[in-house]
């Protein structure tokens, strides 16, 4: 059985993604659209810089809503970029390369790009046309691009099917997708993707819908294909375990941004971003000695139409500090969490004291809670909550709590949105990295 294949990455850039943004206009309710009101944008991909090297396997890892699939689709021009560029360095004759800006291609030019960049989809049950035979489906790319037709088609389809393990091919050619098992369908999808002999294969969670015992087989197939066909992979996944095995380089994505990127070994040996650490800790491992982790990030990935201020991860981050961008919505979460620990009577009392939490829903750096008359009691409540758990990261981001005539004013520390910066062997977007020189004594490398 195959162990980790030898890395054949050449260091030469194949696809360059620069400051890429893919924003979707949100379609609000009927009334809002009629009135022409601004309904907001979802920043699916929000400023991503990556270069894909020839021959490498690049992993895009993140939860759903992290923008990893949109990024993959944008690389093929299936999602339109709203800003930035994607440049594909097409291999021409005699070692020459031709630059093609995917994000600007249209029509026939864009379609012709598909002979070089191909995609494998997550759900094999949905990726094949239910009313097309396997032979027609796998052969269609050749027909579309005028590479083969009529008599020539069949042997080439058969070869592609056998290449992906659907052998003997005759047994599968006349079948419909419904007659195949999940793993076989995924093989057919891969056959359709490689029949054009592409350079880059974007694989969007190619094994996550499959059974455990089939996942390894499909992954093995992808390893073999890479070796035999000299493919470059973009492997999109939420599963760090398969990424660790399969990828040369990993980009961890969160809410449309890359928060950590680097060689697989570095990322796993010394994860730097708190999000990466959390993902690693959360993987359920079939190891009887590993228990359910205790210190997991709370909550879920936020709404990309209303991302948190500062670092997007700060509301869930167990290591967050004052500069992370604390704001009003974090206070709401804190109060709500506090109330899940209270008896109903004291909850109702405190809730009445604080008043409606809806005023915390718009991101603000200064908020007022309660009313003027109760300001002392509101302040008391906040102090009590603070005493319950003084290590709660939010408090580090509170500059001042003061009683005003209208209630209690909470002022948050000015935060900033960290950029991707080199730290150790990787690049991280976190205020804690690279470690400030002033905090740690200087150590020569």
């Amino acid at each position, binding site marked *: 059985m195959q162990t980790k294949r030898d890395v054949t990455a050449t260091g030469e850039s194949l696809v360059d993604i620069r400051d890429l943004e893919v924003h979707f206009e949100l379609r609000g309710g009927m009334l809002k659209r009629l009135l022409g009101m601004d309904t907001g944008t979802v920043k699916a991909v929000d400023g991503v810089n990556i270069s894909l090297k020839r021959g490498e396997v690049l992993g895009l890892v993140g939860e759903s809503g992290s923008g990893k699939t949109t990024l993959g689709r944008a690389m093929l021009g299936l999602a339109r970029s709203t800003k930035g560029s994607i440049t594909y360095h097409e291999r021409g004759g005699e070692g020459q390369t031709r630059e093609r800006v995917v994000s600007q291609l249209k029509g026939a030019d864009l379609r012709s790009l598909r002979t070089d960049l191909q995609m494998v989809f997550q759900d094999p049950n949905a990726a094949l046309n239910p009313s097309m035979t396997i032979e027609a489906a796998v052969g269609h790319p050749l027909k579309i691009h005028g590479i083969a037709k009529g008599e020539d088609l069949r042997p080439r389809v058969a070869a592609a099917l056998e290449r992906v393990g659907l052998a003997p091919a005759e047994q599968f050619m006349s079948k419909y997708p419904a007659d195949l098992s999940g793993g076989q369908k995924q093989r057919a999808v891969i056959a359709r993707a490689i029949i054009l002999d592409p350079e880059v294969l974007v694989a969007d969670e190619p094994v996550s819908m499959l059974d455990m*015992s089939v996942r390894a087989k499909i992954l093995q197939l992808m390893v073999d294909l890479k070796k035999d066909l000299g493919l470059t992979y973009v492997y999109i996944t939420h599963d760090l375990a398969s990424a660790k095995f399969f990828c040369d380089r990993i980009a961890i994505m969160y809410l449309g941004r890359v928060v950590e990127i680097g060689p697989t070994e570095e990322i796993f040996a010394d994860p730097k971003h708190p999000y990466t650490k959390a993902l690693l800790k959360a993987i359920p491992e079939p190891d009887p000695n590993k228990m359910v982790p205790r210190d997991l990030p709370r909550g879920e990935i936020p709404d990309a139409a209303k991302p948190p201020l500062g670092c997007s991860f700060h509301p869930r981050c167990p290591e967050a500090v004052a500069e992370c961008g604390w704001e009003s919505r974090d206070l709401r979460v804190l109060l709500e969490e506090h109330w899940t620990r209270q008896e109903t009577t004291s909850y109702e009392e405190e809730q009445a004291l604080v008043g409606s939490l809806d005023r915390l829903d718009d991101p603000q750096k200064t908020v007022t809670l309660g009313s003027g008359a109760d300001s002392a009691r509101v302040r008391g409540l906040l102090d009590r909550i603070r005493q319950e758990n003084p290590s709660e990261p939010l408090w580090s981001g509170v500059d001042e709590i003061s009683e005003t005539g209208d209630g209690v004013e909470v002022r948050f520390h000015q935060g900033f949105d960290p950029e991707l910066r080199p730290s150790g062997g990787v690049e991280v977007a976190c205020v804690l990295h690279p470690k400030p020189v002033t905090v740690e004594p200087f150590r020569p490398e």
Partner: protein
Amino acid sequence: MTELYDAPVAARDDNAPVIDAQDIRIWYGSERGPVKAVDGVSFSLRKGEILGLVGESGCGKSTIGRGLLGLLPPGAEMDGALRFKGEDLLALPKKEMFAKRGAELGMIFQEPLTRLNPLMRISEHFEETLRTHEKSIGKEEIQRRALEVLRLMGIPPTRYRSYPHEFSGGMRQRLMIALALVLRPAFVVADEPTTALDVLVEAQIIRILHSLRSEFETSLLLITHNLGIIAEACDRVAVMYAGEIVEIGDAREVFSDPQHPYTRELLRSTISLSTTGLNFIPGAPPDLVNPPTGCHFHPRCPDAMNICATRHPVQHAMPNGTRVQCWAADLAHGRAPDLTEDDTAPLVREEISVADEA
């Protein structure tokens, strides 16, 4: 009938099984003949225990979960003995089974959104659930009990009057768990409760399920295809293959020293952080209309012997306390003294095609 489990002996004896299934069979009708989705499965769960049921899709694990709660589709036949606190559930009339479901037997499904009514507030969901089983319950009592269970699930009381669509995926699954637990059932089936969720949220839900025993003393049957979840959340594990439990025992023992070749190969084929090479089980799970003769796993088993193809193995207790249904394990532990040399010779088989898979 109710006196039966209110009897002091049953109530005080913590070691008496909450649910005891013996030789359960669930068959479906099909054009080609009966589909033996579950074929002779036995297990029991004690109070507060979590039993993980693991297997590939189509092995019958979800069918068992539904069968235990009487939620089988029309056309399915079920027999065997299924005792809940000593009472035979299969003998109960439909109406009494309906009353038990929810109140004493709960279910948590995979897709929470499809199980919540989008036009009903969370409070109304709780009112409906509680009123179905306790007709005279007052509004304040409903709120008190609902908020209490929501709190344990980490859902703030401020959200009590929200609609399902105002919650995120993980919150909805917590809601489903809260709804299943508000009646404090003694036994809950959770069918792939985290499959639709992201890793971090999945870990949160597992932690909640894990805490059920201390908060509610609920016995839980956790059905999943993810071995990692079983290892982290379960006390015991049952491995299913082709409608049968092939290995059942303490989760620690099963994972550290699997006795059945299927369990071992399944563990080896799982991709984890420590994976350095890919392993897989050749072939595909069998057709449940005509399962292979002898041991159902023999066509894919690396350890198959001649006997495996002809005689069905019997479940035996192994020295480490697990129960295993495998000739090779029997042989290794002296549980099969009457096997001849021909019986134990390696089985000669046809090559399995690469693409013959699930």
